[in-house]
């Protein structure tokens, strides 16, 4: 190997394990779920996750398709066994083949199905009842299905209206809502009968839009907003949501190991090269 590419493996592992614990921990996560393919990338991910969270807190999900090489599954099981992580197998053949024409299922479709399978509560069931002594959020996330549900709710429910539909240059409070987009709510992304987003949020879009304009575009502080006459509870609620949803506006966090890292100091526009 080119010696300039050689790293100190123990140091890199230590950094990555600390990274996983620290960055996942900030969001309250102390368990991991991953797709184990039998290849080297997911095997390393599983090994790092097992070290960071404890093997009993990592669920490896095998998601073969009917034409997958059986040796991949054997390799994946071997990895999981060596690491001591529980596994669950979800055969994606039926759902992939059920889409359009079974003869034309492409790789990327299968990748999406695997993504879908990883989002399915049932994939997590084997972890039910795993004890985590001394776990801080024992009550909330003992049940991984509930945990995932909470994540999904968090990620789909509330992003203040203006952030979603704002057209540049429009005055605050008059942002058009695309027709048909009535609300976004509920774990499945479609409106639940008889409920609007505004009801669920507990405040109206018009008021929130006005507040967001001052908060974001005009850099009002919370104190400024209070002085401008906004309800303290509304301020608290909106400010908290804007901050708590920031993770959705940015690419995933990458551990900075190399001298130039994506998101930090490898800086090019998205349209670079196009």
């Amino acid at each position, binding site marked *: 190997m080119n010696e300039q590419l050689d790293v100190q493996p123990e*140091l890199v592992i230590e950094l990555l394990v600390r990274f996983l614990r620290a*960055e996942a921990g900030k969001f309250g996560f102390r368990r991991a779920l991953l797709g184990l393919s039998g290849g080297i990338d997911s095997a390393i991910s599983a090994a790092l996750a097992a070290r960071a969270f404890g093997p009993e807190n990592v669920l490896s999900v095998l998601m073969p398709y009917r034409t997958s090489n059986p040796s991949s599954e054997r390799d994946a099981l071997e990895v999981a066994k060596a690491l001591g992580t529980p596994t669950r197998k979800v055969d994606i053949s039926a759902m992939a083949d059920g889409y359009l024409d079974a003869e034309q299922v492409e790789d990327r479709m299968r990748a999406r199905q695997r993504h879908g399978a990883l989002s399915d509560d049932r994939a997590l069931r084997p972890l039910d009842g795993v004890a985590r002594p001394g776990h801080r959020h024992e009550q909330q996330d003992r049940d991984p299905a509930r945990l995932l549900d909470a994540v999904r709710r968090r990620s789909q429910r509330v992003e203040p209206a203006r952030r979603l539909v704002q057209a540049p240059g429009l005055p605050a409070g008059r942002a058009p809502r695309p027709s048909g987009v009535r609300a976004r709510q509920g774990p499945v992304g479609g409106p639940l009968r008889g409920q609007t987003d505004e009801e669920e949020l507990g405040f109206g879009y018009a008021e929130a839009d006005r507040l967001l304009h001052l908060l974001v575009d005009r850099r009002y502080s919370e104190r400024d907003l209070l002085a401008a006459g906004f309800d303290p509870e509304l301020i608290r609620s909106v400010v908290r949501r804007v901050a708590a949803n920031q993770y959705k506006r940015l690419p995933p966090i990458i551990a900075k190991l190399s001298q130039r890292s994506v998101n930090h100091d490898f800086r090019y526009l998205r349209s670079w090269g196009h």
Partner: protein
Amino acid sequence: MTIRIQLAQVEPTLGNLEANRALHLAEVEAARSEGAQAICFPELSLTGYFLKDQTPEVALSRESAFLEPLVEASRRISIGVGFVERGRDGRTYNSYAWLEDGRVAGLHRKVHLVSYGMFEESRDLAAGEHYKPIESKLGRLGVLICEDLWHMEGAWLYFQQGVDALIVPSASPARGVEAGNDGLGSVRTWRSLLETTATMTQSWVVHVNRTGWEDGISFGGGSRVIDPYGAQVGELAGLDAGRLHVDVDPREAARARTRVPLRRDEKPWILRRELERLAEEDSR
């Protein structure tokens, strides 16, 4: 006479002033129970580092009531603390305050803001312009915030002004995992800089770096104390948060300068003359 200095290698929470103040007060208590007369926190210890648009939101004037519990605690122990300062001029600075006897005894504003690679301090902060020693009851102190140490004039100017110790708070990211480094390259480079600076300025050098992660960037720890001869007398190795107290004799700096009179033999007027010559040549 020796002074016990505690290094607080902490992991602040980004943008959470309340949590960080509580962390500081707990560390101050721990330092007092160790019998320390001074405690030094890292750069921007009250706010966290990669603040970006949060910078103005966490800025505090040096008279801010928010600092009061720490200022009050400084009646019993001297405290060096990093924060975003809102100056009277309305600008924000990367500042380090020295709290002592219930007041802000001195303050340094980072001169060399870092704006390259992953850093963009100049977008959010104004730069300090002075290296004025802080007159502490424990000795004469010069504060160099992180990058300030990487430029020679700061340490040199403090040396001219006869400081006993250089306090070097930092928020230095962990970098350099290449095989040739034997540990983190960044930590090794820092150690070398600190030892060289101590040797050349014949000062105690107290380096306090932070730990923890901010969006995938880890801070490398490696806080240490170097004596006025360039020898390390204590370090916090590794990436964990931690505490270390070191007993130092501030008079040792003066003794070092008597034994090897580098300070006596400095020729600052040559520097002035040469700078004038360079300026004149530049203007031609």
